[in-house]
């Protein structure tokens, strides 16, 4: 006779199995929506997806044609906002990780970063309208919208850069200092080269965030419709208003009546795939970096 299982033991095992299945279900219930959503969007958008859809102007009051001005506008907004946010964010992270001491002031900065990250996007929109459009007299323009987006992405860039900097071992810095290098020489020669890829990963992630936001640009620079010449990359100026993919999706799905359904679905697919591909690239980069880390 083998050792019989006690009643308590059976119950324990059964509970264990139930718990595992329930938790697995909860985790899977998160994967399912992603697959379903992307699949459904593709299914609905299939008839319209083509290169022409990407490069043509909207026609017949946005009930026909493509999304070219919105695509280009999003590209402008994302690029300009990151060009503004990256140097400030990286410098702030360098300050927090390399210069600041652990005192109340540093705590305050940390608290500000956390809270800046938690400010609702519509409040960012109000701020952008009050500060850049009105106070700085930039008007509703690509510049004002990009500045608003830059401030929104800033705290996340600070956090991810700080993490990348902190992953460089202290011994690297100490070795550098001990041969007589100054603080800044150490940062430039040792800390930044060893963390640059981690910093880039964090910034790439913000490309997708900036591309997807709607509320902050709605009142600061994005418009329903703007005619630009087809096929020209420099069709927008810094002080022009522009269209944007996210805003375009909002417009044709809620504001314009009788839009053929494939059109908003096509726009949504382009937006979602842009965001997901950028994220996937960043995740792949991160995994590759981890695998070849030497220390």
């Amino acid at each position, binding site marked *: 006779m083998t050792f019989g299982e006690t009643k308590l033991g059976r119950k324990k095992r059964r509970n264990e199995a139930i718990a595992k299945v329930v938790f*697995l279900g*909860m985790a899977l219930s998160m994967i399912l929506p992603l697959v379903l959503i992307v699949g459904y969007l593709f299914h609905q958008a299939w008839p319209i997806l083509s290169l022409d859809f990407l490069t043509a102007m909207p026609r017949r009051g946005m009930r026909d044609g493509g999304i070219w001005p919105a695509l280009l506008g999003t590209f402008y907004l994302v690029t300009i906002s990151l060009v503004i946010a990256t140097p400030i964010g990286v410098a702030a992270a360098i300050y927090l990780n390399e210069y600041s001491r652990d005192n109340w002031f540093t705590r305050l900065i940390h608290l500000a970063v*956390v809270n*800046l990250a*938690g*400010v609702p996007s519509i*409040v960012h929109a*109000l701020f952008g309208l009050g500060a850049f459009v009105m106070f700085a007299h930039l008007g509703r323009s690509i510049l004002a919208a990009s500045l608003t987006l830059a401030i929104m992405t800033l*705290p996340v860039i600070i956090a991810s850069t700080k993490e990348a900097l902190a992953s460089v071992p202290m011994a690297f810095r100490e070795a550098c200092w001990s041969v007589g290098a100054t603080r800044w020489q150490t940062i430039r020669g040792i800390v930044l080269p060893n963390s640059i890829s981690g910093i880039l990963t964090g910034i790439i992630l913000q490309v997708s965030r900036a591309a997807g936001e709607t509320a902050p640009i709605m009142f600061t620079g994005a418009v329903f419709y703007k005619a630009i010449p087809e096929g020209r990359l420099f069709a927008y100026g810094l002080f022009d208003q522009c269209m944007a993919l996210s805003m375009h999706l909002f417009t044709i799905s809620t504001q314009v009546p009788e839009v053929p359904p494939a059109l908003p679905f096509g726009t949504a697919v382009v937006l979602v795939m842009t965001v997901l591909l950028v994220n996937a690239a960043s995740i792949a980069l991160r995994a590759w970096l981890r695998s070849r880390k030497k220390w």
Partner: protein
Amino acid sequence: MRPRWETALEWAIEWIIRLCGVSAILFVLGIFFFVFREGSGYLFHGFNPVQFFTSIEWYPTSQSNVRYGVLALIAGTASVTLLAMAIAVPFGLGAAIFISEFCTGKWRESIKVVIELLAAIPSVVWGFIGLTVMNPLIIKIFNAPIGLNVLNGGIILALMSVPIIVSIGEDALKAVPDSYREAALALGATRWQLVYRVLLPAAKNGLLAAVLLGVGRAVGETMAVLMATGHAIKIPTSPLDSVRTLTATIAAELGEAPVHSQHYQVLFIIGILLFIITFAVNLLADLAVKGIKGK
């Protein structure tokens, strides 16, 4: 000797870095200042806080009797957030427990990647899904006259705030020392008993922070609720009622309110209210996290 200009350059760079380090504080103050500035004209002349907080009458464009009562809007935000949390908290914490305690290696990494991608889907796309997928679904299943309601917005918001609950919750569970787990398992506890009796009490502050950050996300979300909850300004009595949230009101009406009119200023006052709510929620979450680190 180093040339003098190099020393000067280094001095300048270090000051720029310090300045950027302080920038996060300046931006938080700046957001409050500029939003406050745009709303201050009415806030100090004629603003009626009693009516503002206790009236459900929101008639900003009425010719005869203008009333700005945001109680119904607050109820809208609260109802959608509550429903979202009722769904997202058990699922999010369950998934966090599954990832951190019940699976390893490849599985863990893949689920985390999927959750990261889920977090990347732009809010306007979620709103679009609420509009085109959930809306007909709710009408069909519940036989409701309209599918844009609390239920719709709650489910969409739950899907949007689950990723943040999972990632912060998992961090909190990871912060529990392994010796706790080993001690419990050595006593013959099953994994479920370990989770229920040891990990949940030990990580409760971090899990609380995860929930609070999820609440902050849900309260501040704009585009998704703008598109998915309908536009009825009233206190909901069932999940199938349409509502309008604080954020959606700003997004829907700011474009039409004449600049510096009373209506425009009241929308900025709602922005201040949102800023204060999310600031408080984030502060609490930060304190909860500090609580575990201090131990």
